């Protein structure tokens, strides 16, 4: 009897969980009228990748954090290891981001500021609170324009692989870093990003980083994007270059008055 009772519980549990097991393949996520996952909304990382992609202890003004690099190590070519170390030593002024420049991709995805996604059948657009960055991802089947082009946020072409948005990004400059710790790339950077909703409020963001001038092989980062759910959440503005100038203008005014 006892055994039978357990079995019926087990059967009931299976019956209840069966649909859930089915959903594990296709989680309950919001969808667009065309059936594609609806990635729209305001998103933000909750990690420390902007400061350092790899495991690191706390530094003044930098929270400790665990790395987002699959396999921990970034496969630099020997010359590039040295360059990364030099970058790290000089990071307070050498990081292009300190000048208020667009931080590049993928870095703009994990700056600790929100960004908003918009979707139509032919476009996925991302607008960033940080530095008024914009990414327009064409999902209309068009190829990358012919290069050479050097854009700070690259050229993004997307396609749907089932429920995953896959974005191919090329046409970069060599003027952006991957984080404040001096991790870097060249203009030959090629990214393949994968955006997969794992529930209504989470996107798994994976990006494969390829750059034959700097790395010995492609490598991958994985992190989560969290939906900002505050009822009054809105994309505001943080434009570092203008904030620097405003402060400078204020100093000059005080000096002359």
């Amino acid at each position: 009897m006892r055994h039978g009772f357990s079995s019926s519980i087990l059967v009931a549990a299976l019956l209840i969980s069966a649909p859930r097991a089915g959903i594990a393949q296709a989680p309950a996520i919001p969808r667009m009228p065309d059936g594609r996952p609806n990635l729209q909304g305001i998103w933000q990382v909750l990690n420390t990748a902007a400061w350092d992609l790899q495991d690191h202890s706390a530094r003044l003004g930098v929270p400790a954090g665990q790395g987002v690099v699959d396999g921990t190590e970034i496969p630099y070519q020997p010359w590039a290891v040295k360059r990364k170390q030099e970058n790290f030593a000089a990071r307070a002024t050498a990081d292009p981001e300190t000048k208020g420049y667009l931080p590049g991709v993928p870095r703009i995805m994990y700056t600790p500021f929100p960004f908003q996604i918009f979707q139509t059948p032919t476009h996925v657009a991302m607008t960033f609170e940080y530095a008024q960055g914009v990414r327009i991802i064409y999902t209309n089947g068009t190829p990358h324009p012919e290069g050479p082009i050097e854009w700070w946020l690259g050229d993004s072409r997307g396609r749907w692989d089932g429920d995953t948005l896959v974005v191919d990004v090329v046409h970069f400059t060599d003027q952006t870093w991957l984080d404040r710790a001096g991790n870097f790339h060249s203009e030959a950077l090629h990214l393949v990003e994968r955006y997969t909703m794992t529930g209504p409020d989470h996107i798994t963001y994976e990006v494969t980083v390829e750059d034959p001038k700097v790395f010995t092989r492609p490598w991958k980062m994985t992190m989560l994007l969290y939906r900002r759910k505050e009822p009054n959440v809105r994309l505001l503005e943080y434009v570092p270059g203008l904030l620097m100038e405003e402060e400078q203008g204020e100093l000059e005014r005080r000096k002359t008055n």
Partner: protein
Amino acid sequence: MSTRVTGLLIALGVLLAPPIAAAQTPERPPMIAGCLTENLAFHNCALQKAKTFNPPRTPTGRPNLQGYWRSRLTQAFSVEGVAENHPYVKDPVTPWDVAPPEIVEPADRRIPYQPWAAPIGREGVNFRQYVDPRTTCSTAGVPRLALQDPSQILQPPTDDHVLWLHDDHHQFRVIAMDGRARPGNDVKMWNGFSRGRWDGNTLVIETTNLNGYTWIDDSGNFYTDNARLTERLTMIDPDTIHYEVTLEDPKAYTRPWKAAWALVRDKTPGGYELFEESCREGDRDLRLIREQGFKLYFGAPWRLR
């Protein structure tokens, strides 16, 4: 004068330099969408056309404004127009074209400044002492962004937002269509906070929370952080939007005023896409302009008076 030109030339992308919108006066054909192209004549004609034109629709039945748009019936120097006897018309460095005002109301087609504000705007203190904020790689602001070629409108089928993307310094405007409240008064933004709604076939955008750090045109016309802007975008034929903006600012103006021009669909053969127009990242000239004695703006003339 030459410093002004330098300023205009700053807005270059890193590699692919887009047209220097502010230095150009787009062509003004005699007619657009069956309307004369003097701004007031166009405005009145467009208001009539809008009554009968049935625009293309999105799947949810909204007017479909999506596509790439170019500003027409615009000149960048002054919304008050460029008269034939204006000294810059024959200037060897910045030969501005003679152009009618973009202002369509009030009847004198001048900005109804309060007495203190007129000498700051209208080729005044701003123009003579300050770097055009657009030159410092900020946004052109509203409505000046709509003067800068080209732009793209996206309407997600969820109808909760309209996104207006601009080539100019990778600017964008998120227009919330979901009725959400605006942020508190102390949240100020370069492009403000925009809420939209449909009034028949017209997209109405109300913008508040502006920081007042932008100019309306190259000659230094301005509003303060108290401004409230109402834009109305109405298709009057399949390739033309009648763009109308009402500017209210009880701090600087004696009454609301209106400007109007056209947005015409880009029909570049082979298609068209926006470029990344980085600005700060390629800036070589701001230092030179500053050396000429021009100050950074940040609303100082109205903020600190």
